[in-house]
């Protein structure tokens, strides 16, 4: 990781007050904020397989330190998150410098996201995406009633840990619908089918950037990523929008509408 350490030194010298990346500590990899080239953390910088929602941490830092500039290590998904969060007014891109890291072939295959590399690649080499659609296809092969039973079974394992929401880089609402007692009854586990999960899925439409952290954080192995990936497909199909791609084009669900929107509809 010497390339990354060099880049960190360079950024701290010029562009940024602090660099958000990953380091190794006692055999584990975790996020670290380095604000000083002399810091011992710089020597410990390491990128492993473990992935963390760095854009989420970054959003918190930007809010807590309104006068500081931050550099951040981004994979393809992180960059999509930063772009989308800036359109949702959670991030001031004038104070953010992204350092791009491309995922390896193994990582891309394990992940299955549509673009396992950021726009500007500073580290690593671009590899082909290995999009994973098997679970979506399996669900689509089932008839209505069977489909519902399939999802019921999956959601029946939900322990309402809120891990999917807590770790999602795109979730930032102060008043979360999932905690609204009229929508999701408190104290009921598993949550009544399908309220918790369809609410989350609807909120992810036009927002989910397919990082997969939700599914990794789920203790019950629920195929959340596939559900939200389907929402992405719906947004792309019906409304011609993909989250995290354009710096200017906002999600059609975030503003009332133009003639152009309606032309895309049936």
């Amino acid at each position, binding site marked *: 990781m010497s390339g990354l350490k060099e880049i960190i030194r360079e950024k701290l010298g010029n562009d940024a007050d602090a660099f958000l990346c990953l380091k190794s500590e006692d055999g584990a990899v975790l996020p670290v904020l380095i604000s000083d080239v002399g810091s011992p953390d710089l020597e410990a910088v390491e990128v492993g397989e473990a992935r963390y929602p760095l854009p989420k941490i970054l959003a918190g830092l930007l809010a807590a330190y309104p006068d500081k500039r931050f550099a951040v290590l981004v994979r393809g998904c992180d960059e999509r998150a930063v772009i989308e969060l800036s359109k949702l007014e959670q991030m001031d891109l004038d104070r953010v410098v992204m350092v791009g890291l491309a995922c390896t072939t193994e990582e891309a295959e394990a992940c299955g996201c549509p673009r396992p590399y950021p726009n500007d690649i500073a580290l690593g080499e671009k590899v082909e995406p290995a999009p994973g659609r098997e679970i979506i296809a399996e669900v689509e092969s089932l008839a209505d009633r069977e489909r519902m039973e399939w999802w019921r079974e999956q959601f029946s394992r939900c322990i309402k840990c809120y891990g999917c929401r807590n770790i999602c880089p795109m979730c930032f609402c102060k008043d979360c619908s999932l905690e609204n007692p009229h*929508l999701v009854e408190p104290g009921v586990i598993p949550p009544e*089918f399908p309220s918790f999960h369809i609410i989350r899925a609807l909120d992810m439409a036009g927002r989910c950037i397919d990082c997969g952290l939700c599914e990794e954080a789920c203790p019950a192995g629920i195929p959340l990523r596939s559900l939200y990936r389907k929402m992405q497909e719906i947004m792309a199909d019906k409304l011609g929008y993909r989250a995290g791609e354009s710096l200017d084009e906002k999600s059609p669900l975030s503003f009332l509408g133009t003639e152009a929107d*309606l032309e895309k509809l049936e």
Partner: protein
Amino acid sequence: MMAETSNETSSPDGIRILAFLCNWCSYAGADLAGVSRLQYPANVLDVRVMCTGTISPYFVIKAFQEGMDGVLIAGCHIGDCHYLKGNYMTAKRFQVLREALRFLGLEEGRLRLEWVSAAEGEKYAEVIRSFTEEVRALGPSPLRERREAGAGAVKA
């Protein structure tokens, strides 16, 4: 709304439909249908909203959770929205909501979006007739069945 739905309505065959009607167009259209003494099935509960653009997808989910077999959203024709572009939002949201519910296995025919103007009493009646028929053919909603059976959730 919750109190109303939990009591048995006058639904002749137990099929219950919730209709969100916008104040300026479809609600007036429904009113016209009534005044004109047009006949249509009595399975529908109307909820008047100021604009269909204010209908959060959550309301529709909640309606199905509370035991509705079908949900209808009827608003102004595109271009006629009293608030100019509220129904654009409705149209966009509806696409996503319908596909999401389909993906979870809720039959497509249970959710419908129609544009009905204040002058279209006959159209309103026709929409109610055809939608009720479609929902009736599908039978009670699978979400309603499960809730009534009291499916085993642990109350913490």
